[in-house]
């Protein structure tokens, strides 16, 4: 063997400046929390405390919502082309400072720098550019004078793509003339706090964008505030259900983007090497913390052994480690809680009778880590075949015919995404027609574009983000 080891190539942390403590960003400035309570945000790759963030209570939320109500007065008088200018400015500033954002995202969330640098940040900027372009063309999108903004919208975002999910929510909301109270996830608030600084820098009118940090109780206060006109939530299905129950009986708009258990269907006539790459990308991208992850591999029975063999070899080349190392493929699990959840589900998979393959690699001593894992010999009734694991764990099922593939793929409470791998165009179309999934990729996976609407069926939620349809999530019919 002529082993060639890649030396560490660490992206410098020096570029980011993290305050010891952060307040909420309300009415255009950072303010100390009424609650006087703080919570540490740590780096999941080292468990080092990065900063303390405020926990918003009822009064904090009330303050933020009132600021957004006041902000709406001016924002609704701001011409659409002016709104567009602010969004363009934000997009450009994000591009300028993308390295800083990327490092911060990887530090706070654990994702590899190559992903935050090459995927998250470019997508974030694109979203702002895209919706900046729509701001003065809303009438063209859905007809003249038929729609108007909700007003004050509450947005609750998850920890897997913190800044990207912020951009999916904030850009269309501001473009359509709403004002925002945003609550980032408790484990990943730092990029949102930096974004708030940018809002100040571009001179966004006070109260248009408000940021309130905290935990689940803060989110709950936001959902239950009387003056919120619309809630947009991305996160787990259980929290989504709670929100929907809370809002029942109130005139509050709601869009939910929830969990998934996507099927990645590999037919025997697929280009197998490329399918292996796609399957790897589908489940191990962002440590599998992806709602649309291709977490169920459906492989045609006659190529099962060949495919699994290729897949295991490829998995073994994945580089797990320091998220700031530019050569890291798989970073840290976002939190201790999430790691426990993944571990429990995997243990259950093994005791159910699933055959577990994990790559051989050394894991860092500190921080939260999970080896890329593959289950074979799984039956449809195992929990790992039905429940969202939200980690680097792939579950394999087999099928014999296209009909059976579709049946298995749809045999889930979710319906967010799916993948199809075959060299036959007609088979792609046949299969896609029959899958209940919001987004379907063919011979590729995890490809995103701001112009393409994203969202789910069944318990994966409702409403669409992105594209022309994404505007509708922040508009209601004009009376």
């Amino acid at each position, binding site marked *: *063997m*002529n*082993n*060639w*080891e*890649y*030396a*560490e*190539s660490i992206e410098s942390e020096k570029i980011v400046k993290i305050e010891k403590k952060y307040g909420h960003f309300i009415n255009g400035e950072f303010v100390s929390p009424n609650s006087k309570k703080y919570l540490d945000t740590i780096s999941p790759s080292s468990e080092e405390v990065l900063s303390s963030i405020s926990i918003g209570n009822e009064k904090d939320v009330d303050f933020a919502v009132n600021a957004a109500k006041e902000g709406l007065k001016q924002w609704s008088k701001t011409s659409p082309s002016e709104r567009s200018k602010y969004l363009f400015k934000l997009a450009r500033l994000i591009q300028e400072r993308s390295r800083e954002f990327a490092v911060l995202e990887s530090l706070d969330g654990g994702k590899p720098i*190559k992903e935050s640098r*090459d995927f998250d940040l470019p997508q974030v900027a694109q979203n702002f550019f895209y919706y900046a372009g729509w701001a003065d063309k809303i009438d063209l999108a859905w007809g003249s004078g038929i729609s108007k903004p909700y007003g004050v919208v509450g947005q609750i975002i998850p920890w897997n793509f913190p800044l990207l999910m912020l951009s999916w929510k904030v850009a269309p909301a501001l473009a359509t003339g709403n004002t925002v109270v945003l609550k980032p996830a408790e484990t990943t608030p730092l990029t949102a706090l930096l974004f708030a600084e940018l809002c100040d820098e571009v001179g966004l009118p006070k109260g248009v964008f408000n940021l309130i940090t905290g935990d689940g109780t803060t989110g709950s206060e936001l959902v239950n505030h009387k003056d919120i006109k619309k809630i947009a939530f991305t996160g787990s299905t259980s929290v989504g259900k709670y929100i929907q129950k809370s809002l029942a009986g109130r005139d509050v708009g709601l869009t939910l983007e929830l969990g998934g258990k996507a099927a990645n269907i590999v037919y025997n*006539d*697929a*280009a*197998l*090497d*490329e*399918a292996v*790459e*796609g399957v790897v*990308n589908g489940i191990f991208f962002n440590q599998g913390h992806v709602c649309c992850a291709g977490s169920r591999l459906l492989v045609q029975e006659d190529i099962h052994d060949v495919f699994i*063999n290729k897949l295991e070899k490829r998995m073994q*080349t994945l580089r797990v480690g320091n998220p700031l190392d*530019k*050569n890291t493929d798989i970073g840290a699990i976002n939190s201790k809680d999430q790691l426990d959840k993944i571990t429990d589900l995997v243990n259950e998979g093994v005791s159910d009778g699933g055959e577990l393959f994990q790559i051989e690699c050394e894991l860092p001593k500190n921080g939260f880590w999970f080896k890329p894992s593959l289950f074979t010999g799984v039956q449809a009734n195992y929990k790992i075949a039905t429940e969202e694991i939200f980690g680097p764990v792939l579950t394999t099922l087999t099928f014999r015919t296209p009909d059976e593939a579709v049946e298995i793929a749809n045999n889930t409470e979710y319906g967010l995404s799916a993948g199809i791998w075959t*060299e036959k165009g007609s088979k792609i179309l046949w299969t896609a027609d029959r899958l209940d999934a919001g987004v379907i990729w063919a*011979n*590729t996976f995890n490809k995103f574009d701001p112009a393409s609407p994203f969202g789910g069926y069944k318990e994966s939620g409702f409403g669409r983000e992105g594209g022309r349809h994404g505007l509708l999530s922040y508009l209601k019919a004009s009376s």
Partner: protein
Amino acid sequence: MNTNLSMNNIVDWTTTSDLVGNVKVDQVGVLDRVSSLATRSIKRESKLDALEKIVSMCDLTTLEGEDTEGKIIQMSSKAMSPDPNDDNVPSAAAVCVYPALVSTAKKIVKDSNVKVASVSSYFPSGQAPIESKISDTQFAIDEGADEIDIVINRKAFFEGDYKKVYEEIKALKDVCGEIHLKTILEIGELKTYENIKKASVIALCAGSDFIKTSTGKISNGSSREACLIMARTVREFESYGYGMRGIKVAGGIRDAKDAIRYLVIINEELGGSWLSADYFRFGASSLLDDVLKQIKKLKTNAYQSSYYFPRG
């Protein structure tokens, strides 16, 4: 050892034909993988390691009508000692010349580590009857060539006569026997990834020890995408039990950065076992000088001008 394998590691035509018929490659996936591997950040000791490996994998090449004995002597001498001021820099893998100049090169490199490779089979077009290709090859071997670089019959390939492509390579491998046979696919003419993969399969089945991207004689030379496809074909070949085969990339690889990206592809798709001159080569004329400069830069922190290095 696989039963479909006969003498000279040749896979029978029926099996070959099945494999060719079953070729599938997805363009988007290939491009994605190559661009993702290009982001590998190779620094410090791993960079030095890579650069020294690249020197040892270089087939220093001149294939011009204007080549003279003097030119060949100069290049062969450089291949043996690319940087006379630094003993840690290895010798190149081989010199690559036209058949008529093999004996000249051989006189210089003698029994050193540096091999003499000769192009043959009516390089670069391959437009000649098989009898001529055989005598061209036999001549190079008689002159002392250690390795033979042939071209595939693209005329037959595009006419759909894959069997003829296969039979010609097989016939030339028969002539070569133990001598290393590198088969040039000329990917710049094959164009599609499917064609590149088909030609790779045919060349490997017909007994080639190496498959090689390009002649360097047309404007479209090597590409990292082709290297990836060829690497995956070689991997598949080994998984069938047909043994380890090598890859040579040539044509347009001019700087160290590009060469390192090729090395990353081989490292991640095939693994460390392929990272030696026995299984991976660069065919190049100007690449070596840039690699030597980069080595010097890493060791001394200063770029040196070309005139510090001997001409090749």
